[in-house]
């Protein structure tokens, strides 16, 4: 948890994704690391620009899926062979082909849930309160048609006045200071 007083960062607003990408790339090149972009729809270039290349969601999904499948198949086998073995239609107790189907379904079920909730968890959501929402123009634009670059106060290079000018140099629509 970051400190709860003072400045969270400086927020520059742009009209087009292109401007945002340009600014973000520049800032990243200039050594900014605690920075983030906010867009109304996924802009891959922006992510590239701030050096965000890969994420862990696929791994989480894989693990979830394998666990689901294994769990179900194991349970089926245990139930039919160990727990209460019965002669069903003269079939063997270990009728593995039949067991494949539910195991398959559970693989998908667990994988899907892991993907969704893994994504949210990795995104540190839910975060109903966020400093950015304090910015007067953020909520109006970020989810509709505006593109934001935020340089955060935690970055060692951050200095309220210099950074403000630095951002101005990208000719944004506006630069505002975001309080915690």
């Amino acid at each position, binding site marked *: 948890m970051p400190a709860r007083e003072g400045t969270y960062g400086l927020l520059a607003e742009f009209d087009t994704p292109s401007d945002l990408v340009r600014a973000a790339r520049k800032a990243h090149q200039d050594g900014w690391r605690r920075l983030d972009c906010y867009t109304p729809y996924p802009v891959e270039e922006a992510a590239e620009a701030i050096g965000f290349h890969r994420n862990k969601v696929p791994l989480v999904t894989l693990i979830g899926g394998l666990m689901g499948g294994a769990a179900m198949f194991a349970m089926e086998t245990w139930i039919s062979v160990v727990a209460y*073995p019965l002669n069903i239609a003269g079939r063997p107790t270990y009728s593995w082909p039949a067991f494949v189907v539910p195991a398959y379904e559970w693989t998908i079920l667990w994988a899907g849930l892991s993907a969704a909730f893994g994504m949210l968890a990795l995104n540190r959501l*839910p975060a*109903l*309160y966020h400093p950015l*929402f*304090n910015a*007067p123009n953020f909520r*109006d634009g970020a989810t509709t048609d505006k593109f934001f670059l935020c340089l955060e106060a935690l970055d060692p290079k951050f200095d309220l006045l210099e950074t403000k000018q630095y951002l101005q140099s990208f000719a944004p629509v506006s630069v505002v200071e975001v309080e915690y």
Partner: protein
Amino acid sequence: MAQIFDRSSNALARASLVLTGLIVIALGVTLDQLQRSPWVTRQGQRPDQPVPFSHKHHVQGLGLQCQYCHVTVEKSSYAGIPPTKTCINCHAQIWTNAQLLQPVRDSWATGQSLVWTKVHDLPDYVYFNHSIHVNKGIGCASCHGRVDQMPLMYAQNTLQMEWCLNCHRNPAKNLRPTSQIYNMAWEAPSDSRPVWCNAAPSESGVPTAQSVNCVTKDPTTAGPQMASLELPSAGAAHLVTADMTSATMPAMPVYQKFTSQEQLGLYLVKHYKIRTPRELSSCEVCHR
């Protein structure tokens, strides 16, 4: 455009997520416990009875044998609830005007049944047969508990299907010699309390109940040479087949010594011809 949610809401949101998970788990555990709880099974509950009949007093105190009242337990699926007559047999002489026994005397006078409440009440679709259990070495106490220590009757066990299967899947651990069926105090053999058994040859058509003869006192008192006949060592006792013993010693019954329930259990399973767990846990055994 300001914040909608207060700072605390993040923590709150996450907490509530965790809580939801916990509640679900808790609910599951509760239900799982509930289905086995006395509230459902009536285990250990003592329902109101017309007469506070004490098994403790009659069995332990007076030493009545189970079959004195439950006459058909060896012959029929029902053990049998004694008719008022059975009570009156004695209570015509003793406690003739005890207040507690008023309902009994009324019943005897009016010819109206005493209306008891079932304590061991199986669902109607379960077909339990006392006789086969009693004839194959399941003692009363195995299911009904130490009745001789129950002032008021209650169900010792849940009588749920899992409980039945528990034994049907491994009868050996509950079997006892048929001579000990009604012995409330019977305990599994141990080094301190060994049991000696000999079995009639399996092909001799004697009823299973009589096919094994067990004693709790050492029958081989005749000294070392006699004891030496007691072959082989108790450890491997259950491996000896009955016909072998009968073959070797036609005249003198060969006793085997048992110092643990599982030895005895396996021996009795063999000689009582207890059916296999697969057969005993087949549906039609109890449901028709």
